[in-house]
């Protein structure tokens, strides 16, 4: 059996999609690496279930970052302002935080992230989820004027 098929079976085992017979067969053949993978899937899955993240497709990053800037305005450190004026940088914002921020996010009609599509190439990074406590997080997926991915920045903003 190919490695891809092995991984598929492992994912199906993890997701509880196998019948009893198939499950027993796969479990009997698990290697140490397979068990490590299952453990990692458990961790990621648990975090996904408890994730406190939200996404708004087409959401202008300016709004998200301005909120962060406003929060930092009284602080002595400069804020990540350029994104707000550099409109050529398209960005998708994922806004995650404690309950208060989540309430604000819900009010802004954001919806829960499960597994966003992975950007096409380059320095691409897909943030599958964020779990934060005691701080706010903004995810900036940046592209240049040509739409090429120029990377992802997760901005953490500690709550006072």
């Amino acid at each position, binding site marked *: 059996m190919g490695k891809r098929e092995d991984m598929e079976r492992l994912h199906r085992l993890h997701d509880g999609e196998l019948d009893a017979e198939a499950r027993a067969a796969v479990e009997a053949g698990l290697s140490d690496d397979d068990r490590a993978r299952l453990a990692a899937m458990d961790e990621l899955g648990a975090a996904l279930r408890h994730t406190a993240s939200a996404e708004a497709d087409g959401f202008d990053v300016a709004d998200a970052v301005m909120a962060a800037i406003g929060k930092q305005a009284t602080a002595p450190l*400069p804020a990540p*302002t350029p994104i707000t004026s550099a409109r050529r940088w398209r960005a998708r914002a994922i806004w995650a935080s404690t309950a208060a921020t989540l309430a604000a996010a819900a009010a802004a009609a954001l919806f829960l992230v499960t597994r966003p599509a992975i950007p096409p190439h380059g320095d691409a990074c897909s943030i599958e989820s964020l779990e934060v406590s005691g701080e706010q997080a903004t995810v900036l997926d940046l592209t240049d004027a040509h739409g090429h991915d120029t990377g992802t920045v997760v901005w953490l903003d500690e709550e006072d």
Partner: protein
Amino acid sequence: MLGTPRLAIALGACLVAVAAQARAEAPDVARCAVRVVLALPQEGGVAPELAPLNARLTRPPFLHWKTFRQLSQEEHTLKPGESADYKLPSGRDGKLVYAEHATLAGGRHVVRGSFRVEGGKSSARTMFALDEGGSLLIAGHRYDDGILIYALSCTAH
């Protein structure tokens, strides 16, 4: 037995193809690096050892920061499910978990994992799927009149 050599050649070609495919899917072990960068607002430029990140650090959202120093860089070789712990300069602890390597349609290679930073009253765990060789930047924690940037990258070979 004219067919035998042809059969052997065909079998050999199949084996080579299977081996190549297995090799393409085999890189389970990943080499993951975490750099810790201090960004300061005063003029000073990007430290030479941060050259691979220069383009990322000199554009939004970092334009207000003019000095970038590398405080540390640690690399670990990880198998799926394994993690590496990092002592961060802010007194926080970092934990990088490597989950898996995946080959996507079109031949793109990505690594999936998570990075947790915790300390004091706050914690953040980011789960990501990152292009092999690419960098994910996690920034914003205040430190020494500046901010910290954690730059994560992994290659699975």
